[in-house]
């Protein structure tokens, strides 16, 4: 379920006036922000186009002073030239400054700008690795567009040592291109709509509008449409009583989904009036109903179980291989470095080699996967039951882990826990149980486990085996398997205690149990204020375990599982398949990695989540790059056998020149999995965008859903495009309001074929029409304008994303009563331009995350 307040942004725009705003460059949001805020026209070295030997280097190891914790690095021999370029948006006079890196093996350079020498003898030598003072390169009349910048290596300082004995290096932290005629610039700070709702309209103002535009279907006739009778809601209190109707109405009207296209349409002002009244009702309801939706005690899913056991027993790796971990290879993921390396060597576990996974620990098998909720994640207590069969699997699993022949060398606890050393067993068990059960352990519990150890020691004649049997029991205990919170001490809304917050945080950020530091913070009672939570969350985000956000959250959020079984038609999309040995492989095994690496780069580099909509870079293998840039012949002359690489390979960060690429929506992975074998499916694509991007899932399709032809060739034969065919289909049905929501979101992606490659025309020659309106208002002609339309209303995606992540963090669906919290989170995220860590921190600090309710009957 979604909860929304989208109209407020529209209102905010209205307040500001209708002048087009300067769009904000979300690429400027980076991990290190100390200097960014007051420098306009700043262009990070690592964001500049990389040519030749240029690459990005993470600099956090050398100190905190590098902007974005990284710089552009180049090396060469004397006479070679480092080339790049930067963008200027207005034809104006600018001051041009460069901030470069100094180091013992850096050279002396001549700087060229657009072919002219602008500075000679720039010596980058220093005894240590440090950041130079800004180098003022002068004032220039720039024409809007790209500016060519190059550095010729002319030699080295006598004291400098040569890099690899032959040449020298250079590094650009960032460039500043400052407009010297700023009067026409709107502001140095990006302008964002202050999220303040205009005064909501009153029922008296709105009722005539409802009568004019709505009652016809929702009240006047004996058979009211959708069982919504607005005429019967005479007083504000009636709207409050029917808050669901109010909320859905606010969204439908605010979004331009209602009234249906063929009915009388309200003016923009009237539309906003109706929506603002209805949202006002929802807000009033949420304020008056402070009881939160309860979180049902949830059990670990198998991914979380793996992580929890790994961390509890200090294992060197996973206990079993899971298809849920899509990107195989983890060395590259190091959030403490602040940079996702330019090149990462990975393969795809889900679609790659060893689809039938080899065991990591002998005889250890995962339990069955828990399925995702229809509009949520697979961590909702209500849907995570423990059946007899599952309990049997869990009991066996606990035993098989500790008794696996490889276990002894695999656990870091061997010496301190499993090996006998004469210390009393209880002394060892106490801290172990506290970590396993995420809280203080009673004397009675400790006694029980110690007694069990004695008994097992007597039976097996082995201290170690008895200890293993204790661990097997711990791993099967409900205290380990469930996220237990004491609800009896809770009122309608009570702050969770420190231990409970610690385990909520660990499960949210790491899909695991708290580490010692978090447990200690809980013991000391330090998790009660925002500063402490802020500090812990940021620490945890810098830990490698935070990869769980990509592996568990992002994968489910994007519904990437659906790519596993996408089967573009074998004859028509032959190049999607490669036969190796007796197995058929799908190119999806490469495309699936792209959106996840983009997500990880945003997470690790703490960039803006708006890059998920529109990024100027992507991680791609060479073959994947060719898939986009040379769609007719991506793999050269390679035939079915060995057409593409199915193994581990380099995915490199590539600067994208065309904005029709970039972000996640236009990745081949998403576009392929939302198509059917013989054609695209604008409905599936539209529903995906509505659900994933805006968290506004369409209701389930009505019972009467005639499908359209399975092959677009058959549609083309009747002289129609899919779009025209769907139009016919929608007008045949009483489905217009839903289609109003999803059609335009799907049609805009018609520019991409069923396997995600660009097309201007359909195979039959008919032109693609990708135009439409976002939220029934903002017109776009093509995908680039569509992305711009989303960027121009960043709140929509920021809210949608925050809702998904909050729902994931809580392990439940969101309800109307969560709206104030979501409003607050969105406001903070907006103010920080969508910075990833801000979304996470604000969710961790939010009221629903820090509180519990005692689930009394209501």
């Amino acid at each position, binding site marked *: 379920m979604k909860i929304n307040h989208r109209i407020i942004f529209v209102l905010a725009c209205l307040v500001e006036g209708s002048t087009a705003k300067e769009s904000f460059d979300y690429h400027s949001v980076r991990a290190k922000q100390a200097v960014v805020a007051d420098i306009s026209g700043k262009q990070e070295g690592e964001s500049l186009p990389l040519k030749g030997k240029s690459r990005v280097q993470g600099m956090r190891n050398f100190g905190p002073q590098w902007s974005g914790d990284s710089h552009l690095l180049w090396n060469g021999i004397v006479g070679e030239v480092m080339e790049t370029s930067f963008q200027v948006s207005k034809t104006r006079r600018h001051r041009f400054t460069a901030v470069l890196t100094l180091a013992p093996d850096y050279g002396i350079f001549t700087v060229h700008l657009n072919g002219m020498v602008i500075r000679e003898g720039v010596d980058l030598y220093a005894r240590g690795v440090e950041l130079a003072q800004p180098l003022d390169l002068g004032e220039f009349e720039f024409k809007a567009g790209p500016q060519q910048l190059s550095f010729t290596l002319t030699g080295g300082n006598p004291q400098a040592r040569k890099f690899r004995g032959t040449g020298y290096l250079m590094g650009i932290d960032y460039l500043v291109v400052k407009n010297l005629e700023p009067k026409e610039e709107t502001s140095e700070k990006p302008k964002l709509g202050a999220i303040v709702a205009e005064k909501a309209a009153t029922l008296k103002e709105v009722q005539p509008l409802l009568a004019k535009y709505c009652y016809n279907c929702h009240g006047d006739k004996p058979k009211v449409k959708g069982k919504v009778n607005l005429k019967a809601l005479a007083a504000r209190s009636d709207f409050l009583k029917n808050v669901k109707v109010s909320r859905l109405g606010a969204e439908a009207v605010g979004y331009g989904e209602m009234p249906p296209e063929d009915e009388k349409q309200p003016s923009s002002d009237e539309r906003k009036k109706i929506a603002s009244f209805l949202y006002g009702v929802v807000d009033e309801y949420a304020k008056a109903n402070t009881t939160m939706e309860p979180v049902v005690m949830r059990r670990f899913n198998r991914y979380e179980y793996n992580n929890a056991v790994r961390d509890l027993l200090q294992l060197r790796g996973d206990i079993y291989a899971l298809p849920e971990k899509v990107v195989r290879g983890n060395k590259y993921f190091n959030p403490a470095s602040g940079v996702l390396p330019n090149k990462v060597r990975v393969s795809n576990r889900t679609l790659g080699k060893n*689809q039938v996974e080899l065991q990591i620990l002998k005889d250890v098998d995962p339990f069955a996967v828990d399925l995702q909720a229809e509009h949520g994640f697979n961590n909702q207590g209500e*849907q995570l039951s423990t*059946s007899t069969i599952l*309990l049997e699997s869990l009991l066996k699993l606990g035993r098989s882990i500790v008794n696996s022949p490889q276990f002894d060398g695999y656990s870091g606890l061997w010496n301190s826990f499993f090996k006998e050393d004469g210390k009393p067993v209880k002394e060892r068990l106490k801290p172990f149980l506290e970590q396993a059960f995420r809280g203080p352990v009673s004397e009675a519990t400790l006694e029980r486990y110690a007694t069990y150890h004695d008994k097992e020691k007597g039976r097996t004649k082995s201290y170690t085996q008895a200890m293993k049997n204790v661990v097997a029991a711990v791993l099967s205990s409900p205290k380990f398997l469930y996220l237990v919170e004491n609800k009896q001490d809770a009122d309608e809304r009570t702050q969770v205690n420190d231990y409970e917050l610690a385990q909520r945080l660990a499960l949210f950020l790491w899909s695991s149990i708290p580490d010692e530091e978090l447990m200690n913070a809980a013991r000391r009672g330090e998790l009660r204020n925002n500063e402490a939570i802020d500090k812990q969350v940021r620490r945890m985000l810098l830990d490698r375990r935070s990869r769980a956000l990509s592996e568990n959250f992002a994968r489910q959020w994007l519904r990437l*599982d659906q790519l596993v079984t996408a089967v573009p038609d074998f004859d028509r999309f032959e190049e999607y398949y490669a036969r190796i040995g007796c197995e058929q492989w799908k190119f999806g095994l490469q495309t699936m990695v792209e959106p996840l690496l983009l997500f990880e780069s945003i997470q690790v580099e703490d960039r803006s989540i708006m890059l998920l909509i529109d990024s100027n870079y992507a991680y791609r293998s060479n073959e994947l790059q060719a898939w986009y840039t040379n769609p007719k012949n991506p793999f050269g002359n390679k035939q079915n056998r060995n057409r593409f690489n199915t193994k581990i390979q380099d995915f490199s960060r590539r600067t994208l020149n065309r904005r029709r690429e970039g972000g996640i929506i236009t990745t081949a992975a998403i576009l392929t999995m939302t198509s059917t074998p013989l054609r695209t499916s604008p409905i599936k694509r539209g529903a995906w965008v509505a659900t994933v991007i805006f968290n506004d899932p369409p209701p*389930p399709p009505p019972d009467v859903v005639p499908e359209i032809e399975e092959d677009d060739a058959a549609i083309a034969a009747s002289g129609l495009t899919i779009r025209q065919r769907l139009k016919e289909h929608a007008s045949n049905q009483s489905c217009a309001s839903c289609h109003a929501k999803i059609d335009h979101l799907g049609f805009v992606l018609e520019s991409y074929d069923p396997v995600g490659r660009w097309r201007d025309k359909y195979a039959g020659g008919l032109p693609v029409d990708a135009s439409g309106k976002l939220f029934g208002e903002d017109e776009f002609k093509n995908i680039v304008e569509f992305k711009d339309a989303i960027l121009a209303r960043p709140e929509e995606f920021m809210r949608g994303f925050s809702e998904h992540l909050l729902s994931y963090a809580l392990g439940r669906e969101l309800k109307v009563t969560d709206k104030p919290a979501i409003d607050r989170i969105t406001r903070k995220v907006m103010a920080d331009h969508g910075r990833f860590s801000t979304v996470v921190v604000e969710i961790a600090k939010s009221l629903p995350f820090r509180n519990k309710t005692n689930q009394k009957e209501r």
Partner: protein
Amino acid sequence: MNVLKHNLLPRRSFLRGCGATLALPFLDVMQAKAEKGSTAPRRLAFFYTPNGVAQKAWNPTETGLNFALSPTLKPLEKMRKKISLHTNLDRIKVPGTDGHAQAGACYLSTARPDELSPAGYPLKRTIDQVIADVAGQSTAFRSLELSCNSYTDNRESVYFDNISWYGHGHVARSIKDPRQAFNRLFAVHEHQANASVLDLVLADAKDLQPKLGRLDQNKLGEYLESVRTVEQQIERITKRQDDIRDLDLEEPGKLWTTMQRDEYIQVMGDLMILALQTDLTRVSSMMVAPERWDTPLMFHGLFDKPIRHHGWTHNQNKEQVLSDLEKLDLFHIEQYARLVTKMDTIQEGEGTLLDNMMFVMGSGLSSGFHHTCNNLPTLIAGSGGGLFETNHHEKHPEGTPIANLWLSMAKGMGVKTNRIGDSTGVIKDWAV
């Protein structure tokens, strides 16, 4: 209760993954039992196919005894004397949750529309579980849930993938891997190895109880119920361990993920039959495929490309699609018929296992085209030991709840109740 004869056959490797071609070496267990003067117990099993059936080819024109089989039912010709067909049985769909999810998850409970679960489904303890409460009191396993869902993506939610539920929010998970099913039934030592930790985890659960809220109590209740069932299973399967040892079975050799559809369904069916035949359980359900799951799936030998069953059902107003859909329905009936035939070769006293079965083939939708729930396709093989007439097409009065059939079956299986879900009474002429 040593009903298995000793050392009947050499080591049995019938489940090596060739289920499609090799028949079970059926054991004469129940006959042994009958000889001792006791009657064979009634048993119940379900064979659930998703997305409804193509109506025209399914519905016969004749009713009553010895009716002429419709095209889709033709594969049952040889077994017709032991089959009955029911038409005009309905389920009620409620708005708010997906039609296919309801079709699967609520098929066997058909709760009244005013008995919605918190998630909005008319879902309660399903009929197989209600019956297992009674019929499973002495068997090693109270029930056995199997599934032939071979999709490798996790596209749909739990509601699409399960027909058996202990209650709302508490799914009776099905086993998809034949090896796992095999080991659950016959690896006695694995059950026994579970015993030692049960007291400990039970004590932990009791610690938690006073802390929990109302909804959490339900979740812990599921855990406790499972612990108790595991305990019971250990006790009961230990009593049967000699029988099982003497069976000397070998686990299925072939990996299930490499099996073709027919092979997979038959291997799972064989395991189900074996469990019923050896009286390890008296209640079983088998979900042949999950609801909706629009992912293309390969049916070897039937279609040369992976097909979307669900997609087809919405496209069956086209001739070619309809004919393909009928072909798929026919395939499912063939699979069912093969299992029915196998059951009928197992002697039990004067009759066969099949005679003592009620083996239901059905779907939670009648037609997938409009998600219709009226006139659900319903076949029963066997007569539950003579509870009703076979070789018969019973056309019920319009609007008869399918819950009436569930009620009749429950009574036949010994459940003392007068209502199941939205039932209004038992099926007429049933000896219950």
